[in-house]
């Protein structure tokens, strides 16, 4: 019995932790179910071994800050722009050529990170209870009394907070506060995240939700009759905000050459095609086969507001505003 215990402990303690220098260490906020195949293909095509730590984007971001220049990570792949902005001081500068092939709407002008996919904010609504005439033209319309108690939102969600930042950048802090207070007065219902909002509509709890474009596709894939549909606001409305997921190279990395190869791989047609078809997100390079559940890229560029993505990674002011109105 005692030797069994000792054996177990010895076995556990001998689990190797050291990673070889030639191997790439990636901290990924994106889930293994989606990007695991991308990583595998990268290893096959380049011969570089990749070790991935899968966890939440926020948790990994705080871990990276805690590790500082002792971080074992080479690359950080984040789910949303907010994390990329927060971690930007820890990223190494990228060669400007990397961002060249990327569509202009997504580019990171400071060359601290590269976008790997785009996601737009959309309005989801109930197919059963909402008529076309009821659809709001602008996101500001949702503060109208006819939508009282019918709209869902998720104030703790990173994409929503990025949207609020964009609203502040586009229309000013006072207008943003007015909109938030208007929505609260209109009894907008708080949900934990985007998926929960869509389910809330299907369950009849609310009629509208503010989510990212790729969620509905996942529900429709398993059930084409799912009673929720999506649409966008009028062209140029701030409610159509285009955001990104992206990756950067950690400054503390001693493997920057391989890290650069990885980022270039993520921008290659192979990886981009996979991400758009499997993940329902917008590719960042032109010339690929379009995912049928998505709007064409031209449409998206036309309807989305012209905002500099770097500006919407400033979260401090947004969080302060959300706290001020009592949402956080």
């Amino acid at each position, binding site marked *: 019995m005692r030797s069994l215990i000792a054996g*177990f*402990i010895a*076995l*556990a*303690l001998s*689990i*190797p*932790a050291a990673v070889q220098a030639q191997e790439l*260490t990636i901290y990924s*906020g*994106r*889930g*293994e*179910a*989606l990007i695991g195949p991308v990583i595998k293909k990268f290893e096959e095509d380049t011969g570089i071994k990749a*070790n*991935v*730590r*899968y*966890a*939440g984007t*926020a*948790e*990994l*971001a*705080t*871990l990276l*800050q*805690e*590790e500082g220049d*002792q971080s*074992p990570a080479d690359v950080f792949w984040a*789910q949303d722009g*907010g*994390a990329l902005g*927060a*971690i930007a001081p820890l990223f190494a500068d990228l060669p400007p050529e990397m961002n060249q092939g990327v569509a202009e709407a997504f580019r990171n002008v400071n060359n601290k990170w590269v976008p790997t996919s785009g996601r737009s904010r959309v309005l989801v609504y109930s197919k059963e209870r909402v008529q076309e005439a009821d659809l709001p033209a602008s996101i500001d319309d949702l503060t109208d009394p006819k939508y009282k108690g019918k709209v869902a939102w998720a104030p*703790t969600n*990173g994409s929503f*907070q990025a949207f609020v930042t964009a609203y502040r950048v586009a229309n000013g802090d006072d207008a943003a506060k007015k909109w938030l207070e208007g929505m609260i007065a209109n009894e907008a219902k708080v*949900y*934990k995240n985007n*998926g*929960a909002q869509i*389910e809330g509509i*299907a*369950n*009849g*709890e609310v009629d509208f939700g503010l989510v990212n474009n790729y*969620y509905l596709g*996942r529900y429709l894939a*398993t059930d084409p009759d799912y*009673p929720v549909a999506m649409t966008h606001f009028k062209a140029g409305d701030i409610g159509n905000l285009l955001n990104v997921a992206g990756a950067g190279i950690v400054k503390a990395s001693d493997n920057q050459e391989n890290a650069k190869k990885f980022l270039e791989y993520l921008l290659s047609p192979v990886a981009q095609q996979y991400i758009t078809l499997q*993940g329902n997100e917008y590719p960042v390079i032109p010339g690929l086969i379009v995912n049928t559940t998505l709007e064409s890229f031209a449409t998206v560029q036309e309807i989305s507001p012209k905002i500099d993505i770097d500006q919407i990674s400033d*979260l*401090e002011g947004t*969080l*302060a505003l959300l*706290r001020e109105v009592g949402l*956080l």
Partner: protein
Amino acid sequence: MLASSRASQKRRPHLFLLVPAVIVAVGMLLPFVYLVARSLEADAATLAEIVFRERNLLLLRNTLALTLGVLLMTTLIALPLAWLVVRSDLKFKKFHATMGVLPLAVPGYVMAYALIGLSGYYGFASHFFGIRLPRPEGLTGSVLALSLYTFPYLFLNLRASLLGLDPGLEETARSLGRTPWQTFFAVVVPHLVPALLSGWLVIGLYVLGDFGVIALMRYEVFSYAIYTQYSGAFDRVYAAWLSLMLMAVTLSFILIEARLRGRRYVRTGKGAARRAAPIPLGRARPLVWLFLTSVYIASIGLPLMVLSYWIWRAGPLVDPGEVATAFYRTALVAVPAALIAISLAVPVVYLTVRFPSPASSALDRLVYLGYAVPPLAFALSMAFFALRAAPWLYQTATLLIFAYVMTFLALAIGPVRSRLLQIGPRYEEVSRSLGHGPFASFMLTTFPLLRTSMLSGALLVFIMIVKELPITFLLAPIGYSTLATTVFSRTSEGMMAEAAPHALMIVLFSSLFVGLILRHEGRR
């Protein structure tokens, strides 16, 4: 018969006791030191804005309401269940005892999804019965979800206490003219107080720290504010302040429990305690069966039903090889951690029970600290210290095991302490008087009696580790996936159906071990 604990304990505790105590004390203080270090980086203005604001008071009030609700509900389930299993003439006691402990295997997020999944458009009830049930949410939804998988901890404590009670006390009360109900409240319940208190403490601390369930139920509590700081603001300084505030609340819980527990230890009289005669249920039997069935369906049946339903809808998307590897890896860190936890728990409990002093009282409180620290803050504190003191330990299995031990030690302490209090020092005193040394006396007399409670403690720690997530995905060696991180990897991309088979695996595998807790306890 009551006996004072001070008695003749003027000797110094042996090194065997002091070394583990010091290890535990240091391990518990590390996260606290980290949080204080981070909080010193704050500036007063932002502090006022983020930490000292009215909304935080509201969140705190919600947290306390939630905790009280859960403590009430778990007691309403666990106390009758424990009494029925130990004292009544219920048939198939083994089965009922197992069902009372099985919900421990269910991870919190699974229970919450199960309750939610019962209702609504895609709900189980909608599909099979055509009724769209209202979604459980808010305070009631959170209390329900949390109680249904935390009550087993209280059940275990109460059952162990009831088994160790000398029926002579109750018979004396009856012979003096008390009715059965009066006897129960006057004699039995006071003896259950230590078990109740330690069970409430563990459950209460768990509820204070929970974020997953309350987020799904859309009920805003204090841990919400902490999580938002870490995840929304990517901030560690004000999150540290909020964590310290939460720990102040948990400290007050700990101090209240210690004060209520008091220093009077309950002991059986001279001679051996008999087993009490089973009390017949008579006409109450159908009611009892109704109660039991509802509890079992809600706590086990529901999660299993909903998980199986999701799997049936989504089709088999699970790769058995992958699941087996994940399970093997989980066990490989969970088993050593559970064993180390119990080996530290026994000396610490012995020290605090047999050598009362201000230092051992402090240690008694300190062991709960690891459990009280929010898991994300705990993981960051381990990273902080490892990177500064021993970088080669960082993100190794060793550090992960150490983190698990310190976080869940409090769970191992409970059963062992209750049992040691019941055993009392008499056997060791007799052995000493026969010429054996203190250590030999302990091993010869008390240790064999402690074995079953040690097994319970170790298994409790093991099951919690199998479900654990935030510490694992930050501190595990890279590429080392456990069952829980595999579930997370799928749910983070919104692929709930793909996550279901893995979540089911966690429940099934944990259930196997849960069954073990009772198998050994039965042999007394």
